[in-house]
């Protein structure tokens, strides 16, 4: 079995209101060195196959067409074989 962990985050140029709210709360709580927070998504996909190249190709397509909105988001992913 293969597990793909997909990370979707807002592009650096896009304002992240959730991140701003968390940043401001952390500062309020005394975490003085916190400079910025960005909120993203982690999506785990399980594949019932063991060919990493095949899974990688599928994950790339899934990310580009569904999981990330190319207007505002970037994505990356890890692929690992799990038992």
């Amino acid at each position: 079995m293969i597990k793909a962990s997909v990370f979707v985050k807002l592009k650096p140029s896009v304002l992240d209101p959730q991140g701003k709210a968390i940043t401001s709360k952390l500062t309020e709580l005394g975490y003085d060195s916190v400079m910025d927070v960005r909120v993203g998504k982690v999506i785990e996909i399980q594949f019932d196959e063991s060919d990493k190249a095949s899974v990688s190709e599928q994950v790339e397509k899934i990310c580009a067409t569904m999981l990330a909105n190319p207007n505002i988001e970037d994505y990356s992913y890890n692929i690992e074989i799990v038992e």
Partner: protein
Amino acid sequence: MKVSVITFPGTNCDHDTIEVFSQFGDDATLVWHQDRDLKNPDLVVFAGGSAYGDYLRGGALAKYSPVVEEVIKYAGKGGMVLGLCNGFQILTECGLLPGTLMINTGLDFICEHRHIRVEHPNSPWTYGIAAGTVLDIPIAHKEGNFHIDAAGLQELEDNERVLFRYSDESGNVNTDANPNGSLNNIAGICSANKRVLGMMPHPERAAFPGLKSQDGTQLFKALQSYFAASG
């Protein structure tokens, strides 16, 4: 006028939308998202609600329904498509309109009456409505913060594709009148050929007697006039 209103799982303004068009004597009918027959419409509507629960992002999963493929083909042939609220999100996700509706800058779901200013009368959607007309139309969304890159924004502005902006009651467009952080106070945009419109406000919630505002009626009347004039 024949109107086909699309129902996805989670759409909840489809019946209101049918009622509004029926008030004008239009032949308005529901089309299920798994269907491919659009029923030969003059206008297709993606109504408000939360298609697929807005999972992942508003409209992100709805775009894979068979009916959307047909609507894209229909729009490609010059067909008219209206997306209201969640319908606007679906239009951006499926590529019929540019940009993205991001989470409101205040992070809240906002459900309240707002004023929008009509920017350009030269579209089927604003036909006969003077530029600068201010309408009181409710909004109800958490992801209505319109975002697009600088070049895309310029293109929309240069080609008079921003049809509605959030304003105050007197038509002043400023930060105070912007409920959700939308670039340039954008509340609604149309396609390059002007035949696809997406807007976050709900005109169908301001088009029945007895409601707080009936200003939405003006937009539906504009459509009627456009169709009457274009035969």
